[in-house]
């Protein structure tokens, strides 16, 4: 059993709440799949930035509450229960979660895994110093017995330099009583250039190590760092001319952890996710860190 994409959805309402955005996308996604919400075994939130800088409980639990997914199994039906947690790994969070979902399905531990994301500034406001746009994204993965479809292989990598290039944190001592509303974001000069180089290195190594010829790739989903970035990456990886590298920066800006899910949704909406296509994921972010995966539609 391996993980396949059953349905996708996005939510572009700007409520200032990562919980609301992700929950709305999640409900739309389950509706699109025609899946009874009670059938979701695992809910993984990969969003990083949340209102009020909430640290506990998991944002995933608050999303689950909003979505009313198996809210009280011990008083309803213990056979229908959902485990929710946050997977925090910045831009690579979605592919880490997909890796977990695939393992859970291979071992029979889960049949349906919902991966959700949305990032908001902790104040809930649109702030010029916050580099990401708020976009809720949802991807429902389900177990399939068709071995010719689904995720895999995956590869994860971090640079050895020790310079993460991008940092974000809450300096609670300095924030005084404003700790719920503030975040500090720093980006080194040339950060996007460094990421581009790292994306190229990681993508090339992945294709080589997995013996995947670049001309086998039909679709590229990568980080939405700036307009033109996906096309440049496709070119530098030597992907074929008609490979579609999805670039929605002009419409969305950078939706950060929602980029893979939202790009998948855009591909599905445009009818490009047709059977037999090979989709390459390359996500890059702070660390530097990268995640690559092949998905066979």
């Amino acid at each position, binding site marked *: 059993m391996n993980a396949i994409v059953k349905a996708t959805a996005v939510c572009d309402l700007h409520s200032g709440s990562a919980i609301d955005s992700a929950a709305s996308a999640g409900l739309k996604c389950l509706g699109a799949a025609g899946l009874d919400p009670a059938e979701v075994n695992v809910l993984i939130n990969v969003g990083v930035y949340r209102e009020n800088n909430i640290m506990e409980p998991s944002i995933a639990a608050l999303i689950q509450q909003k979505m009313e997914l198996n809210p009280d199994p011990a008083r309803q039906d213990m056979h229908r229960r959902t485990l929710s947690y946050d997977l925090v790994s910045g831009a690579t969070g979605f592919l880490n979660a997909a890796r977990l979902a695939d393992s859970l399905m291979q071992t029979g531990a889960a049949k349906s895994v919902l991966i959700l994301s949305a990032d908001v500034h902790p104040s809930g406001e649109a702030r010029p110093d916050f580099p990401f746009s708020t976009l809720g994204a949802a991807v429902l993965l389900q177990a399939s017995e068709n071995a010719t479809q689904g995720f895999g292989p995956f590869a994860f990598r971090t640079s050895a330099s020790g310079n993460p290039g991008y940092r*974000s944190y809450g300096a609670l001592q300095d924030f005084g009583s404003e700790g719920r509303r503030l975040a500090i974001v720093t980006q080194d000069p040339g950060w996007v250039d460094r990421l581009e180089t790292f994306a190229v290195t990681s993508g090339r190594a992945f294709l080589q190590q997995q013996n995947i010829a670049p001309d086998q790739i039909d679709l590229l989903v990568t980080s939405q760092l700036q307009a033109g970035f996906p096309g440049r990456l496709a070119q530098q990886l030597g992907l074929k001319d008609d490979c579609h590298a999805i670039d929605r920066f002009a419409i969305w800006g950078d939706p950060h952890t929602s980029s893979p899910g939202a790009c998948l949704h855009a591909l599905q909406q445009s009818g490009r996710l047709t059977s037999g296509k090979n989709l390459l994921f390359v996500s890059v972010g702070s660390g530097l860190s990268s995640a690559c995966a092949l998905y066979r539609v």
Partner: protein
Amino acid sequence: MSTPVPGSRFESLGVYLPEKVVSTAELVARMPTAPLFDLEKLTGISHRRWRDENDDSHTLALAAAQRCLDASRLKAADLDVLIFTAITRFRDGLCFCAEPAMSLTLKQELGFRDDAMNFDITNACAGMMTGVQILDALIRSGAVRNGMVLSGECITPISETALLEIRDPIDAQFASLTVGDSGAAVIMEAATADDGIEFIDLFTSARFADLCYGMPSDRNPGVAMYTRAMEIHGEVIQRLPDTLGFYSMLNGMNASHIDAVIPHQTSKRAIKSALELCEGSFGKLPETCIALDRYGNTSSTSHLVVLDDYWRQGKIRPGDRVLLLILASGIVMGEAIIKLGQMGV
């Protein structure tokens, strides 16, 4: 990618507890108004460990990870994944880290390979056991051969906020006075014929997701936790018997199969009453392992801190089957049944 295997086991364990000891009496003496109840009597917590001024989640985790590696047959470069699982994500003092992931910096400092996976999981006090369940699935599926689940909980800053802000005799911050700082790490690998994780399941009763919040204070610098303890005890604990009874039906095991039970370390009284409630559906449990009297509630590390403590005392030994009871904000409930073999500590 390696080969799928039937199960995973605890290969080695590392726990770090800071040296500084703070008594409940000292904390109560620092409160502007004395509580209406005897906090030590109510919780059974007489002491907890307290971070040094240079400690944060990162340093506590680093110390635990190094102890775990010292006790292991494996080196950091042999490990395929690092999963960081703390609630508190403090690095460089009280700086709450969003990116890069805590696991990324720790992975580099500990000497993991660049191509090892790393990610952070947050799931309140169930973080480490969620990490254990995830790593078990990754190992069993053959995605990785082995890995480390790691936490550093620099959680006493919530106690400091509570000391400043508690005014009400039933204040939502009283539970913040029960916590203690710690770090814990476990290295897992493919199980042997004689040991391994025999059962693990967690789920979220999200109806109760808003009963306990941790977030920055809106009155002072620092972080606070707000707990509706009465509702947790009144509602959530009542669901434990059905939960354990259901698991017993799934895995065919009850109290008679268990050598020791490690509950999440909230308070002695709450643990005793919860386990008594479960006797009907699960049977009378054997030795209940408690270390909260000395370490307090160490949040996500609690089960491993207790396992380390009892292992060192020889009260839990190779061959024992332990039941870990999981309870956390969310509300996350669950259990793990682990047959322990030779384990580096």
